[in-house]
């Protein structure tokens, strides 16, 4: 299967440096060995077509308009032994707890600022800090983060590190389920004799998490009505919205389906207006309500914020979460864990330099070819410089941008992202991977076992984002110890 496969200086998920598969991949390796080249090719094609046929696509926008594309799927799964996963899960829960306490704190008493741990400027100058709109508002369960998608990477030693927290509108959960579904359809052989954590109950977990956020003034005798608010079918993550709404059995609504009357939110149905209690929104804060945020937003609902503040409707994720997951605040998450929980972080960050610090700025400008530079406000792999892979012109361009507005950028050492084999175009080759772990918080916290493994299918590329040629893999958490005959 893996002739000429080189692990190089990277940590490989599957293969040891001597070319042999790791213990927890042994049985997978043996099963794949039994496929003929022809079978591998056919299965690969069947899998890709499956996504297209079902219309599991995202929309990419460029100068010529939008095109629907599928996320390429790679069948070599990321397999994680139970023990290792348990540690990840613990680390993520710890991080969520601290981040949620942080959000509750900075929209109320701001103890962490008073204690001098996070500079006041950093919070107040943050464009996603909506104190004016939601400061002091009491929300159900005091929970700001209903769903997070935490991006993890593994460094050259195989240690997991958190790269991003994604506390606003993390997308991609539908892919986790579809990847598994397609895997089971196309590669049933792989599932016969092994125990893998099932995803079956995860959507009811998600539904429970949604409906546990009952607003203060909801009718206690009725089951709350929850909806998923989407920007519409032209949004790049529309499939994600469709899938989640469908699977949870809640209505998928657009802004124009909702109306606020006397601070109560209703949806427009064929039988007239129906009260809405909980909104799982997939619209960014500044588009939610033209009266409170951007007046030009046509996606949102006028008066929504006021209904929220009165306790007549819950909005998930909470408004104003962006202050906690931006690339600058990220640096302080370990401090938050120490401050609020009095614990040491279980999952470390990636080392990060603030460019507003003149000393660091000089260092970074001198080492642009070794570092990764990111815009603190951007996501999706945009406005980012990967030093070792950049051209001279790109570095000149970034130097100019950084000097112009240093506080807008952070820099990180180029981590040797772990790699795993990918099978494309009839051969196996190593590709960089990361892992987005989905965390649901309601009355309790539930971490979806596994998550979305994203893979940079372009050889040598470090960018895993689907908008830039990244693909997806299934992620298996082994149960029963996960040894070769598990």
């Amino acid at each position, binding site marked *: 299967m893996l002739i000429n496969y080189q692990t190089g200086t990277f940590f490989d998920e599957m293969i040891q440096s001597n070319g042999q598969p790791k213990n927890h991949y042994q049985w997978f390796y043996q099963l794949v060995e039994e496929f003929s080249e022809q079978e591998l090719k056919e299965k690969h094609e069947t899998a890709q077509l499956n996504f*297209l046929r079902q219309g599991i696509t995202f929309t990419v926008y460029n100068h010529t308009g939008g095109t629907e594309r599928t996320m390429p799927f790679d069948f070599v799964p990321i397999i994680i032994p139970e023990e290792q996963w348990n540690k990840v899960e613990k680390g993520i829960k710890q991080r969520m707890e601290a981040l949620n306490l942080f959000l509750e704190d900075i929209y109320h008493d701001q103890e962490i600022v008073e204690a001098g741990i996070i500079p006041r400027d950093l919070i107040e100058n943050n464009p996603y800090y909506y104190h004016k709109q939601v400061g002091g508002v009491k929300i159900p369960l005091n929970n700001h983060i209903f769903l997070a998608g935490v991006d993890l990477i593994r460094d050259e030693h195989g240690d997991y590190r958190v790269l991003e927290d994604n506390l606003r509108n993390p997308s991609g959960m539908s892919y986790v389920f579809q990847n598994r579904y397609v895997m089971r359809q196309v590669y049933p052989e792989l599932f016969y004799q092994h125990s893998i954590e099932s995803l079956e109950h995860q959507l009811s977990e998600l539904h429970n998490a949604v409906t546990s956020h009952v607003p203060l003034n909801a009718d206690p005798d009725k089951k709350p009505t929850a909806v998923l608010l989407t920007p519409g*079918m032209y949004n790049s993550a529309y499939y994600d919205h469709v899938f989640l709404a469908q699977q949870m059995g809640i209505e998928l609504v657009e802004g124009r389906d909702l109306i606020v009357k006397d601070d109560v939110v209703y949806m427009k149905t*064929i039988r007239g207006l129906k009260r809405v209690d909980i909104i799982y929104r997939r619209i960014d804060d500044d588009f939610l309500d033209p009266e409170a945020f951007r007046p030009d937003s046509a996606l949102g609902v006028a008066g929504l914020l006021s209904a929220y503040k009165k306790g007549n409707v819950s909005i998930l994720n909470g408004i104003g979460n962006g202050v906690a997951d931006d690339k600058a605040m990220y640096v302080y998450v370990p401090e938050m864990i120490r401050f609020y929980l009095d614990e040491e972080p279980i999952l470390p960050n990636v080392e990060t330099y603030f460019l507003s610090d003149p000393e660091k700025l000089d260092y970074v400008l001198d080492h642009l070819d070794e570092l990764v530079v990111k815009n603190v406000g951007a996501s999706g792999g945009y406005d980012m410089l990967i030093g070792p892979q950049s051209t001279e012109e790109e570095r000149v361009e970034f130097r100019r941008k950084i000097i112009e507005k240093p506080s807008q950028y952070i820099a990180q050492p180029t981590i040797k992202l772990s790699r795993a084999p990918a099978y494309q175009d009839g051969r196996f080759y190593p590709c960089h991977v990361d892992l987005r772990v989905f965390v649901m918080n309601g009355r309790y916290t539930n971490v979806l076992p596994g998550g979305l493994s994203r893979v940079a299918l372009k050889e040598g590329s470090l960018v895993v984002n689907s908008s830039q040629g990244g693909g997806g893999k299934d992620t298996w958490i082994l149960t029963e110890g996960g040894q070769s005959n598990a």
Partner: protein
Amino acid sequence: MLSRLADSLYWMSRNIERAENNSRVLSGHLIHMVEVSDEGIADRDWGEILEICASKADYDQLYNRIDREAIIQYLMMSPLNINSSMNCMLYARENAKATRDIIPDDLWEVLNHFHLSQKDWQELPNTRQHTQEYLKEVIKTSMTAQGVIESTMSRGIPYTFIKVGKWLERAEKTARVLNVVCEKNRREAPHKTSNYYYWLKALHFLNGYDGYIKEHPPSMESKHVLNFMIKESTFPRSIRYCIDHVSDAIQNLESGKVSHYSEDLFQMLELVKEEIEQTSIEQMDMEELMKFLDHFQDRCQTVSRMFSETYYLIEPVHVR
């Protein structure tokens, strides 16, 4: 159910039905046209096809003369014609995409499959054979979609909106086709043979030949054909069948009760049913029949509008 979704289902269904009907008309005409040799008649025939499948006025604005290849393209794949088969299928898919969380996955896949193959069709050379294959594909897609709807959807609200859309679209198209043929008949009445041929063609356009011939073998009387396509209560493409079913479906939706908001709609449907009932085709001349068919098409639009208003499918005008 959200009004927006109900509206999308209604239009998804109308567009599927429209694509199928228009494709059948064009396909049928391409087959039968072979038998017409007179240039003048051929041009007039094409004008009628445009009148049935789209709007001749819209076509005339874009092209300055009747050109066979231009019309075929216009009806089949032109992005400029909102009623081209391609556009109808595109709208149907967009509507299905907006309602993916309530329609069966299989229905979405059927429409999506057509969409994915659309590009390949566009790249094929423009031959008669490809045209026919494409039109057949549209018809088959529509039929498969209906099969999925019938075999998998619960007989609830979403199903009702889909069916009402289909029946209204179908009833209106049946009236349109008959109208055009009546007009032709009136003009060319003396020739008995061409008469036969026109009604045969009408039945083919409306997919009613098989059903008709079982009832009336092997004659082709205009009054029989008209009776069959207007008043036959058991044939699923007749005007009466469609209107009866719209009426029953809405009765079901309202559990048999007439409320203040649905009163107008119920009254209108009763009126339309009565008008069909009381029309005596045997005693009408072509002129009167055309008037009736015209009037019925207006009624269809009124019913469609009232239906939309009753269920808030149309955004009410905001008064402040």
